[in-house]
């Protein structure tokens, strides 16, 4: 067989041992697992069971049997490992460096929480096992609920929602159930124009109509316009405080009074809770419903896009409506016994089981590690870091709202537009070359060329300084010749700027859809 035939024989399959896609060695694309696939290869192995090898025909009626094989990749364990290890080298993460992605609270995720989530006594428990066999888990969930209530100043909480948006929908359904119980039907929910996109989307799913109120020149809810839209048809208002501009809504008490006045409820979007831990509590501000993003405030890792957890805490009057069943400490003397209880007017389930349990466990571990004292310190340093960056970059970038911020600050790159048309997007891409993940850009929508920077408390003053200096370099570049080339950024990354338009135009959602 000649070399060329040889090549024929194997050329269909990519070389699993070639590592030019690892940035350590090169900039090639990594083949897909399907291109690494070779007929007949395998990595799997199962237990030896000693069971009779009944033929498929005796197990599955003909009409239900699949005709052909289900084709998946066929790779050796070695190639499987190399493939995903190389992919991991093509991925930025908190563990590699600072990730000041505004609104996402990309703080350091303590490794001890990974160990907690891997404990066989927690990870190996079936969710349908009856309460007597899962007392440890029930105790854990009850302890977390109590801690979250203390932190938010609420009466009780559901741990079911799997993320913030699920928490929002849960909250809106609670709102609806509450009003129904009052015999009042309402149609509108108010949100500020600075709100996160999940808010209006959740409002729609909650069966309500969105009424948007503008922000005033301070970047806060415009009281005047709020009053004009407040009426008996308003079910409630959704706010995040500090808001998405990183600014504290100082009129919150007044807002709460006004909304309650017309019988509406206040919903607190807890995405920004990190800023106020131990300082001020949503419950004390007058909120009736609060969701938290445990994957933000309580450091559970973001997993490349999830999982998260979005528990919802409520005030006394809404407790009977919470989703169920709820983990509860049962009355009785002696050592506590736990069980499941369904609130009498529960809106029903919001998760197949009990929520993202292992994420909940991580969050409780984080709360215990930091403690009441440590949590407040988190808020203090998160706010200190954000204000330091804000102050340091004032003048270098536009500061749409020139007030002290909380845990994050929204700057604008509009001042860089001249002479070379440098945009927030260019700043974001160029910053990657400086060794930092980009801030959130173009959000909130009300700020033109927005750069939303959230350093979090786990980045050191040295990292803040380096980040500030990098952003200063970029701003300086924008006005020079280098500014003209900034649209080339990022340059050292495994891929350069990605053609998003093309992706949407000719959709290739799977390997099989490739032309």
């Amino acid at each position, binding site marked *: 067989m000649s070399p060329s035939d040889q090549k024929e024989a194997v050329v269909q399959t990519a070389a699993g041992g070639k590592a030019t896609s690892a940035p350590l060695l090169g900039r090639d694309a990594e083949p897909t697992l399907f291109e690494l696939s070779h007929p007949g290869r395998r990595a799997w192995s199962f237990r030896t069971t000693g069971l009779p090898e009944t033929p498929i025909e005796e*197990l599955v009626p003909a009409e239900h049997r699949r005709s052909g094989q289900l084709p998946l990749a066929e790779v050796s364990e070695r190639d499987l490992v190399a493939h995903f290890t190389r992919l991991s080298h093509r991925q930025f993460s908190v563990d590699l460096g600072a990730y000041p992605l505004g609104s996402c609270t990309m703080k350091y995720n303590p490794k001890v929480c990974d160990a907690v989530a891997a404990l066989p006594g927690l990870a190996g428990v079936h969710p349908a096992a009856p309460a007597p066999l899962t007392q440890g888990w029930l105790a854990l969930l009850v302890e977390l609920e109590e801690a979250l209530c203390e932190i938010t100043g609420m009466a009780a909480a559901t741990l079911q929602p799997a993320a913030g948006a699920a928490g929002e929908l849960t909250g809106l359904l609670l709102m609806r159930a509450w009003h129904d119980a009052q015999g009042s039907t309402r149609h509108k929910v108010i949100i500020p124009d600075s709100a996160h996109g999940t808010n209006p989307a959740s409002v729609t799913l909650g069966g309500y109509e969105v009424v948007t109120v503008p922000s005033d020149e301070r970047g806060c809810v415009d009281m005047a316009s709020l009053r004009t839209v407040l009426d008996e048809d308003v079910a409630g208002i959704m706010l995040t405080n500090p808001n998405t501009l990183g600014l504290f809504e100082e009129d919150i008490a007044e807002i709460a009074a006004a909304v309650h006045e017309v019988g509406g409820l206040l919903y607190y979007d807890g995405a920004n809770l990190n800023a106020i831990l131990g300082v001020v509590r949503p419950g004390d501000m007058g909120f009736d419903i609060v969701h938290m993003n445990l994957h933000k405030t309580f450091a559970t890792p973001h997993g490349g896009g999830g999982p998260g957890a979005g528990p919802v805490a409520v005030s006394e009057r809404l407790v009977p409506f919470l989703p169920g069943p709820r983990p509860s400490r049962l009355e009785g003397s002696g050592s506590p016994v736990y069980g499941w209880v369904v609130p009498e007017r529960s809106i029903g389930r919001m998760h197949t089981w*009990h929520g993202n349990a292992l994420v909940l466990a991580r969050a409780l571990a984080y709360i215990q590690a930091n403690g*009441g004292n440590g949590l407040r310190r988190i808020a203090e340093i998160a706010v200190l870091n954000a204000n330091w960056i804000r102050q340091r970059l004032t003048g270098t970038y536009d500061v749409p709202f020139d007030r002290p911020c909380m845990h994050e600050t929204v700057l604008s790159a509009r001042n860089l537009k001249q002479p070379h048309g440098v945009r927030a997007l260019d700043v974001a891409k160029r910053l990657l070359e400086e060794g930092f993940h980009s801030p959130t850009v173009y959000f909130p929508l009300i700020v033109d060329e927005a750069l939303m920077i959230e350093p979090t408390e786990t980045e050191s003053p040295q990292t803040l300084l380096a980040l500030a200096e990098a952003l200063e370099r970029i701003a300086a570049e924008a006005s020079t010749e280098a500014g003209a080339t900034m649209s080339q950024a990022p340059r050292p990354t495994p891929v350069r700027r990605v053609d998003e338009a093309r992706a949407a135009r000719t959709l290739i959602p799977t390997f099989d859809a490739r032309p």
Partner: protein
Amino acid sequence: MGTYIPHTDDEVASMLSFLGLASVDELFEVVPEALRLQRGLELADGAGEPDVLARFDELGENNRARNDRLVCFAGGGAYDHEIPSVTKALAGRSEFVTSYTPYQPEVAQGVLQAVFEFQTMISRLSGLPVANASLYDGASAAVEAVNLGVAASGRQRVWVSAGIHPHWRQMLATCAAGTGHQLSTIDLADGQTAWPEVDGLTGDDVPGVLLVGYPNYLGCLEDVGAARDICDRSGAILVVAADPVAAGVLRSPGEWGADVVVGEGQVFGTTLGFGGPYLGLFACAQAHVRRLPGRLVGETVDADGRRAYVTTLRAREQDIRREKATSNVCTNQTLMAVTAAVQLGWLGTSGIAELGLRCARATKYCRDALLAIDGVTPYVTAPVLREFAVRTPVPAEVVIERLADEGFLAGIALDDGYADGDHGLLVAVTERRTRSEIDGYAAAFAKAVA
């Protein structure tokens, strides 16, 4: 006190002075005095890592139903499947664990490509051309599918088979309170959905969506063709809730004519974890791609023409479409999708087939063993694959309690209207169950119901 904050007191002081502040409290002057918490949080002080770990270890000790102590025969949407070291090692790489949604694709090709491969695998499993990057869990995927179906059909009426997991149906009901969808539960007859006659129905009564399980909650194989037929005649959207672990042996829902396929992806490398985080699977026909909920990764090229991946069709999503978005989902379960991609890569073509076959074999062996016990009778007779229900002479709760003392998690007590007055136990048998485990289980079972 354990702390993850790097700042020393001097550093805090110098940063404050840079800000012209005298104390950290001044950072919060914007917060009205009256609202501020005048005391410390009533939580224990911070504990060191070893103490924290010790506490959780003890909590774990208080869970008798851990699968390293009780041999697991419980299923109902959460299964004790093999999770190889390689899946744990790769999906546990910190680059996957500690990154977020790939907003900057140039430095997120790792997650993007893994998800692209995941989407391809789920598309092949479901027999439909498009799959998204994950949803929270099976139930939330079902909710999204119904939302899509109603929007696509323009009809609010949803026929939900009683063979759909009761918890899923409860969540559908919860969410219907917001969307206003009209859910009708269609009962089972001997384990299979007894669809009503659709012809002649008018107006509100005409279904816009049908939702059926394959296999269903009782483990039974449904005649999906019958559902497809109703959809053809009514213009309804067919949503199949498929058990993806069966994909290697069963006809794909796509082949059966499903418009949308949803499923619980926990079976692909994710631990039981007391119910989460799991993995919501969602696939649909090309026609519905612009109604797809959640994120979608697509292939494209970079400025140098190199192959690259990016999240696409973003115009569907909440951060752009706001109240008009197809869904409100933002954070999803990407890490579990990456986990599933690794696990399915480990299984491969032969493994996915072997997996389904082994589950079916073990299930048959176990079912025969239980039905050989006096007083234990089949719950239904419809064909099953990897899970089945039996009637027990004593309450299922009692069986479970007694078998726990023998080292087994016996299964799930049927309630929610299944047990029809009788005692029903739902038993799942995965490829991990050995003959000796099953024999031991059957023996203990016999004792428990004697």
